[in-house]
């Protein structure tokens, strides 16, 4: 895999490798206005741009063109339900088609889980079991997504407290997925911490076993605790432990294209736009410190 083939024509990501990004859920406008000049990439969540009609609200796209017209984009979906045995969610593909017709992303991504069973939305996203059957399914579908849209299609491990069957480790599953699907991985460090805190993952073993050269994007986020469970609800600042893990990982992830801060749109009013900008600055400092001399502005990869 050559990361240079994965960048778009307006390659602002070439300024710094890996690039700094922010997840964008379509609101609030003041967050976009404040952060678009600060980040290298915006990661748009297609599902969050859907309005009452069930389709992408044109106003959301106009807003992005107004405030982030030259900012490279990635798309990060929720509702594809890649792992549903009855097939993925075609409605999500229509959202993606609309967005691809509007602006081509650097790449797009989804989750190693399922949101629909029998056509009904679950209201949550269980992770796929770590089985050969699940691996075969997602390799086939991820390869199809990459071929159809002509862009790399990364997949992210889901954090959930739900027990799931396993025939292999998470790292072995992800290594095989990346090698056989032809797309890099999206690894969410906070998700890993959630699983570790919930007794579902040995984080040290995972970090040692995963081939970090296969990772194209990293997410960092804050979470919350409920009744002793560490939940992946992005409503706060990034924990020190997550930033420490990021610092440990960065030197190993030599094909990394993007490090991104995720925050819920609904959390921004209480968190504050200034806090989000400050979080981005903190991640930027980690990137610059870790990558050092090989991420000079304008330097070729």
């Amino acid at each position, binding site marked *: 895999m050559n990361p240079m083939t994965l960048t778009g024509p307006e390659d602002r990501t070439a300024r710094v490798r890996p690039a700094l990004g922010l997840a964008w859920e379509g609101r609030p406008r003041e967050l976009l206005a404040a952060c678009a000049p600060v980040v290298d990439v915006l990661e748009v969540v297609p599902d969050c741009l*859907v309005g*009452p009609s*069930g389709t992408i609200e044109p106003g959301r796209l106009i807003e992005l063109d107004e405030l982030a017209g030259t900012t490279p984009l990635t798309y990060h979906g929720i509702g594809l339900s890649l792992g549903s045995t009855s097939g993925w969610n075609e409605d*999500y593909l229509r959202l993606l088609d609309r967005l691809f017709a509007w602006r081509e992303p650097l790449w797009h991504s989804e989750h190693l889980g399922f*949101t*629909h069973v029998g*056509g009904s939305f679950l*209201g949550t996203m269980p992770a796929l*079991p770590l089985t050969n059957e699940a691996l075969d399914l997602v390799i086939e579908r991820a390869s199809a997504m990459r071929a159809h849209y002509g862009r790399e299609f990364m997949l992210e491990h889901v954090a959930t407290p739900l027990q799931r069957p396993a025939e292999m480790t998470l790292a072995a599953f992800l290594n095989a997925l990346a090698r056989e699907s032809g797309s890099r991985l999206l690894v969410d460090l906070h998700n890993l911490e959630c699983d570790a805190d919930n007794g579902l993952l040995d984080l040290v073993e995972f970090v040692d076993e995963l081939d970090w050269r296969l990772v194209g994007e990293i997410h960092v986020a804050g979470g919350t605790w409920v009744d002793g469970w560490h939940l992946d609800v992005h409503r706060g600042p990034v924990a020190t432990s997550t930033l420490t893990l990021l610092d440990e990982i960065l030197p190993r992830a030599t094909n990394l294209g993007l490090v991104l801060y995720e925050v819920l749109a609904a959390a921004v009013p209480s968190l504050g736009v200034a806090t989000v900008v400050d979080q981005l600055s903190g991640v930027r400092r980690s990137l610059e410190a870790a990558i050092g001399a090989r991420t000079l502005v304008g330097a070729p990869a």
Partner: protein
Amino acid sequence: MNGLAAYEQAVLATLGHAPTGRSDASGTLRDAASQGHQPQQLSGGEVVRWGVHQWAVLGLGSVCPLTMALLGHRGRVDAEVSVHISRGHRPMVLHHWARQFLAGLVDDPDELVANVARLEGLMAGSRHPAADLGGAPPPPRRWVWSRDPEAVLAALLTGRDPAGLPVRHGGVVVRWVDGRMRTA
């Protein structure tokens, strides 16, 4: 537990949904269901159900704030949201699911709840009439409120319980014309 399909059914059972009865579910689970046994509950289910419920309250509150505010005054939010979740067949689009929620309340024994839900459903429907209501019949275009509707809405918008408003003798006839509520 055998296979992805069986795992899906276990997730459904853990979330409190009915099994889908898909033909490729594993024999073990289908046999269990036919014998009256529930598919196994997954550990971690309690906190996931709590999360689904919390997201549902947040989402419905953003789409039908008046009805949710009124249910809040009645202490019924959690119960009504739980009932709606348990119905299953949930569409991905929140606005469509919220309209189904409102449709389920238009015949509520509490006249205020029924009226506010009907009004909010009409407001949403006038913007997007094609939204799937899950087979629910369209609400009537004319109906009677026992209290001044505008006062009821003003109360809800300012965080007050409209139950204390005076009852109007003979009621107030409300019509829905061209996407607007009219009381004259």
